[in-house]
């Protein structure tokens, strides 16, 4: 047979998908069935998990510095401390920032963070900032009116936070990310990063995580992390930053840099919840760099780890195979199956063990 004839016959072969394949795949896609997991675990999502539940708007927004003012006025029972931003209203005061003491028998209406606070025969101190206000009532009671609801409070310390999503750009950025509007979320984090304090630092880390996880932009993630490191060298989110950097370096295939970053993380934050995942990644990097004993030591230490044990145990066996230690590899595969009979590599491990040689 001639080559051209063979090719002509091959062209005539029907390679159309089977009748139900389109519907089957669509169903799997729409039910969000996860694609088969690679046996070579990536660390994706660790940073997001580390940030999840940690960053909240109320924790983050740095109080704006109050505008300089000469106000030190006193009225009947009202003392406005220097630096406070206070505006008289028809029935009382609007307090934007700063500290105000009140001790008045007259009914006074305060506007604080979008609420109305009625005070009558009460003694209290109001300390307001754009993101948070505290009301310390020492005697009497106050009535807080919030979106039409009236709540009466006696002596105690109360905290008010901004109302609604519009007042919370951090929540808005996270909502965009949850909705899958990654470009929009990136812009929103960018805008937040132009601010100051922990919020800006968090926005840069969140932007890096977003770029890495959803935009497949590891260089962009590194750029955001570099900005965070430069602006906040002793920032509160140093562990999260290090995790995100580690993921980015790994995604870029920079195994030696990833190993060094993992090493640094483990030295500084070795007791963190993510330490075992970082150690697993260090092992992967070591393996890639040919440092097999170091990789083996790390895998070996993770065999019973709840987060990484499944992958580490399988990788432990694979490493023995890679070093041509056949009996040891088989023993480790058996050990893997004993530990993780329903593990994500169980099928492959069982197949490898059953295959006749």
């Amino acid at each position, binding site marked *: 047979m001639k080559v051209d004839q*063979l090719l002509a016959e091959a062209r*005539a072969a029907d390679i159309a998908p089977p009748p139900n394949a389109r519907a089957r795949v669509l169903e799997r896609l729409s039910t969000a069935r996860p694609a088969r997991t690679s046996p070579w675990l990536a660390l994706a999502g660790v940073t997001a998990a580390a940030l999840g539940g940690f960053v909240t708007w109320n924790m983050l927004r740095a109080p704006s510095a109050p505008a300089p003012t000469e106000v030190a006025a006193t009225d009947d029972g009202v003392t406005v401390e220097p630096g406070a931003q206070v505006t008289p209203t028809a029935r009382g005061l609007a307090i934007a920032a700063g500290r105000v003491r009140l001790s008045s028998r007259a009914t006074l209406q305060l506007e604080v963070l979008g609420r109305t606070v009625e005070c009558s025969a009460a003694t209290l101190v109001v300390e307001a900032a754009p993101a948070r206000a505290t009301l310390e009532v020492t005697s009497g009671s106050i009535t807080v009116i919030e979106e039409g609801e009236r709540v009466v409070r006696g002596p105690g310390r109360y905290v008010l936070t901004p109302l609604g999503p519009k007042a919370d750009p951090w929540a808005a950025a996270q909502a965009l990310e949850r909705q899958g509007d990654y470009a929009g979320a990136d812009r929103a984090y960018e805008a937040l990063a132009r601010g100051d304090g922990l919020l800006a630092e968090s926005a840069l880390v969140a932007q890096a995580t977003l770029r890495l996880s959803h935009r497949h932009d590891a260089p962009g993630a590194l750029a955001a992390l570099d900005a965070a490191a430069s602006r906040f060298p002793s920032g509160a989110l140093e562990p999260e930053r290090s995790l995100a950097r580690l993921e980015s370096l790994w995604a870029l295939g920079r195994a030696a840099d990833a190993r060094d970053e993992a090493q640094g993380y483990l030295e500084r934050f070795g007791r963190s919840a993510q330490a075992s995942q970082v150690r697993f990644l260090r092992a992967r990097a070591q393996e890639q760099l040919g440092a097999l004993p170091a990789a083996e030591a790390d895998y070996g230490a993770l065999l019973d780890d709840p987060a990484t044990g499944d992958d580490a145990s399988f990788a432990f066996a694979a490493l023995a195979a890679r070093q041509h230690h056949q009996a040891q590899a088989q023993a480790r595969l058996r050990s893997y199956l004993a530990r993780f009979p329903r593990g994500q590599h169980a099928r492959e491990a069982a197949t490898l063990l059953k295959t006749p040689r």
Partner: protein
Amino acid sequence: MTAAPAMQVFENTSDLELLARCREGEAGAWEKLYSEHFTFAWRMARRLGAPPADLEDVVQDAFSVAHRKLDDFHEGRFSTWLYRIVAHVVAGRRRRQKVRDFFSGILGSAEATHPVAVDDQVSARRALVRVEQLLNQLSPKKREVFALKELEGLTHEAIGELLGIPTATVRTRLFHARADFERLARAEGLEP
């Protein structure tokens, strides 16, 4: 013998409109986009060497990636963009398969690679299997242009657009691919 019709890769009149609706979160638009490109993704995955048993997984992975990355698609043809995702998925799976093959090989597995199912009843299928076995011995880049030209019947220009390379590069790569293929075919007893 009638040749299978070549894929109409570049007729995507309403893709941009569908994509805009997808970005607005319209599930129906995504399903339509999926339906219109499913066969294309399937055929391309097969031509790039994805084992038949893995095709559903490959196509699922490719559409899953495409859906996640819709925001990254700004210009050009959706099919070209999708092709690159399919190629990436196939290449990724091939890399992982190599690792498994290595692992299996060390343990003495006889099932290191996917055997290609041979349907002895159909000569066209048999010919395709034979061609694919030869293609598997070419480098991925040569395999890609050769399969797209000789099996899928695309023009040099269409291949260039799909792969994002100049037409001249397609011609050069194809020349070398054909030479390699013929050399391998001769070794198998075929006449030039």
